[in-house]
């Protein structure tokens, strides 16, 4: 991973035209004293030496053509994938996840929610892996509450990549019920195998449909997302 010279963990938040969760990501990170969040403009080509790059939620380019299909061609995305190839940490939230799949930095693709309606509600997730920089502060099998907020979040993949994903244990979060059971009733959008979030083979790029930045304060929404950012901060400051 990139060396962090500053004591603070630098989070570069990419702003695409149509992004609308960049403020929330910055605000959520501002509740962590060790975090130093800043914005990156999609037309830039320099990431300004981040420890973590966040692709925030929203409707980049109005979701026109396909969600994330146009954003992946933004000038800055070249730098983002190069950053990821050197092991840099990249977190794609909701639209950010959609962009990462369109950019082939993660497996699979997104379909419209089953039911064909936008959904916004609290959601239980089961933690499948804790050997990633994003989940090291969590327990395997732990159930966290993080809201979903999307129209095209039904993650899907071809049978070959599905096999690969299972073999390499790339699934980090699955939709579940309050008791951690992976049921169809607990699946809000029809994603294959209740997949809510996956990493790449190297484990340094995470895409997830739920919004951890929305649950970092007890006064508003809850704290189900704090451990994810906390994991990243500890990973960067203390190493794996």
């Amino acid at each position, binding site marked *: 991973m990139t060396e962090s010279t500053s004591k603070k963990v630098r989070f570069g938040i990419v702003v695409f*035209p149509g992004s609308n969760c960049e403020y929330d990501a910055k605000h959520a990170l501002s509740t962590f004293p060790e975090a130093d969040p800043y914005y990156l403009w999609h037309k830039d080509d320099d990431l300004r030496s981040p420890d973590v790059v966040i692709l925030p939620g929203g409707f980049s380019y109005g979701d026109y053509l396909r969600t994330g299909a146009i954003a992946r061609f933004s000038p800055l995305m070249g730098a983002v994938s190069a950053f990821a190839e050197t092991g840099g940490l990249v977190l794609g939230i909701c639209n950010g996840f959609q962009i990462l799949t369109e950019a082939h930095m993660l497996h699979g693709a997104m379909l419209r929610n089953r039911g064909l*309606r*936008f959904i916004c509600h609290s959601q239980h997730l089961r933690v499948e892996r804790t050997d990633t920089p994003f989940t090291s502060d969590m327990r395997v099998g732990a159930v966290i509450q993080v*809201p979903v*907020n999307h129209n095209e979040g039904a993650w899907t993949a071809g049978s070959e990549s599905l096999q690969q994903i299972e073999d390499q244990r790339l699934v980090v979060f699955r939709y579940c019920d309050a008791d951690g059971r992976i049921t169809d009733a607990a699946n809000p959008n029809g994603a294959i195998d209740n997949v809510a979030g996956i990493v790449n083979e190297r484990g340094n790029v995470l895409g997830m449909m739920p919004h951890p930045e929305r649950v970092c*304060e007890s006064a*508003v929404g809850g704290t189900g997302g704090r451990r994810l950012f906390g994991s990243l901060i500890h990973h960067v400051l203390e190493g794996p």
Partner: protein
Amino acid sequence: MTELYAELGLTSGEYARIKEIQGREPTHVELAVYSLMWSEHCGYKHSRPFLRRLPSHGARVLQGPGENAGIVDIGGGLAVAMKIESHNHPSAVEPYQGAATGVGGILRDIFAMGARPICSLDSLRFGEIAPLPRAGAAQSGQEDGSGAASAGADAGFDRQRYLFENVVAGIGGYGNCMGIPTVAGEVYFEDAYSGNCLVNAMTVGLVRPENIVRSAAAGVGNHVVLFGSKTGRDGIGGASVLASQEFDETLEEKRPSVQVGDPFTEKKLLEVCLELLREGRFVALQDLGAAGITSSASEMAAKGGVGIDIHTDRVPLREQDMAPWEIMISESQERMLAVVTPAEWPEVKAACDRWDLDCTIVGEVTDTERLRVYHRGELQGDMPAVELADAPTCVVDAARPVHEADEPLDPASYPPPEATLSEILLDLVGSPNIASRRWIWEQYDHQVQLNTVVLPGADAALLRVKETGAGLAVCTDGNGRHTYLDPYRGGKAAVAEAARNVSCVGAEPIAVTNCLNFGNPEKGPISYQLSRAIEGMAEACEAFGVPVISGNVSLYNESFGQAIYPTVVVGMLGLSEDFAVHCTSGFKTEGDVIVLLGDATPGLDGSEYQKRWYGAVEGRIPEVDLEAEVVLQGVLRRAVNDGMLRSAHDCSDGGLAVTLAESCLAGGVGARLEFDGVSAPTAAAVASAASAASDTPAPTAPDTPATPAPDTPAPTAPATPTPTAPAARSDLTLFGEAPTRVVVSVAPETATAFRKLCAGAGVPATDLGMVAGDALRMRVGGDEVTVPLAALREAHETGLPRALGIV
């Protein structure tokens, strides 16, 4: 020409006035401009005389009516801009785009003032989407066209479901993409709206007073800059064709007059506007809504006492062969008009380039006080801006509608229905007008921006202000049945209920925005309803000391000659010092004492119970006692802010029983209550109560959690035999509706102090029982009602989807 002015919706009198002003026959462009500026939608010619009655001044008011939005100071160096606006007619023609562009328009109104939108609300009305439990519920039209259209009823439920589902999708589609949370709202289904759905959208924004920008043009020689989307033929004549005429068979032909929304462009427009406003790059800013460049330019000129020249050939177009008059009146969305000094122009242009937005100098500010339109250097029109912005007003003599009653109906004339009280309760809890709105608000992003403290589904939503820690409570309220039965009392009640709702959360009402949805104002009864409703609202606002800082009027809501219910929608803003100190509607802890505040007598007239179980909307609604209302809300807020209350819930649609059921469901806990303390419905019923109570068999639902079939959401129980003599009317006590009532719960150790607080202020407080168990148990007179929470939840949660035929 003669035919053209009529086609454009101008009267011969108005046409004569135009010739008088111009001193000649108007040109084609001039006629198009006048027809729109003098339409009801832009000119408010029938409503302005009445609107003056609304109080609009107050210590907090930084901007009253007349701008894109009103603004009030909320302390801590911050102010709130808010406004509500209708998009009824476009939504009736094309529900998704009509609703979406309605949201887009109100959002532009807010950021045109320099404010960042922090939330949206909506108020919706449609025809019935499912059958009522009793036949003959459909209202027959009034011969004077003053309400309750029956025409659309034939269209059936499918059309209404289509309109409703697509309006909800359109509101979400635009607001979600913009990143503005939709946090509250209301929806009612009444046959009177079957030919004319209502879609009112409200937005609230935050602004630092020093960043407020207004729309008055200034500085002769300054550039007039158009930026945002390109201009096309969409929405040509929308203001006059759609918003200022009744509907008839040609409804479908009007589709080309509906604009198409592009929230992605609007999101970029929002960001670039706020960026440039922070840097103080604008002299004036105005969004383009109804009548496009025409109304924006003439209003900016009129307000600034200057003139504006527009060169239509400089406007970036989607279609190359557009005529000057089309360019002037196009209602293409996502466009703004700004006055910019030559010095700032390069910065403005650069910012728009950065956001990939068109940005063009289309004209300049002059000292002529006239709106002049040029095309390739050729003068196309030359009109005095003030005259354009000041449409001639006309008020039709008021005539009281024939259906209005002087007295409430005697409940004795309504024999109790052949159903158990449990069945009626479950029916009301699951009725489309009362059932959970989850199906709607889960399609809206209600969390983005991380300020939503109290989620949708409460009396009012509560948002935190990150900068100051204050709380903003917002809600929309308006009961069309009430204003239909009595516009004066209904107008009063709408303001009182909105204030009550923000008070339930613990916030103090500080400002009102309103949307007045009425029929054809050229008819006496409609003119009467408009003036009386405004009088009622005005008196209530004065009693609360709350100014009306913005608003919108939507008239001609008629189809086939029948008007909608006259519908007043009040958007209320409440302020609390600390967002963390607030109250919600759900019961919390077993053993808590349940108290009813207020002792207004519940009545049947205008109630959901009357509509569903007697197939009628008739009689006279009770009048709000404003003095009592103000005192009650004061005590309520005091108790919330002193942390005395565990829950507080406004007692409105469906009456006391439904309110209690909602508090049980919101808290996931039951209640055991005894109602003998509650004042009986009417003198007649009281008298008959004693005699009949004993011989009325008490219908009791089985205690076992029943899982009812979708179509009959009630635990099976023997029907009550209809007594011949007037029986004890437990049903009226349970389901009758009255204003100025709130159900609260308090911890036992706090109860005494709370009762003392109420007694000291003279607020009637009646102990009803306690929070307990997993069922709602009520003993009323001789009757006992027990409904398991599970059955209540089933009815409440599936009510709306079931009515839509989804589950």
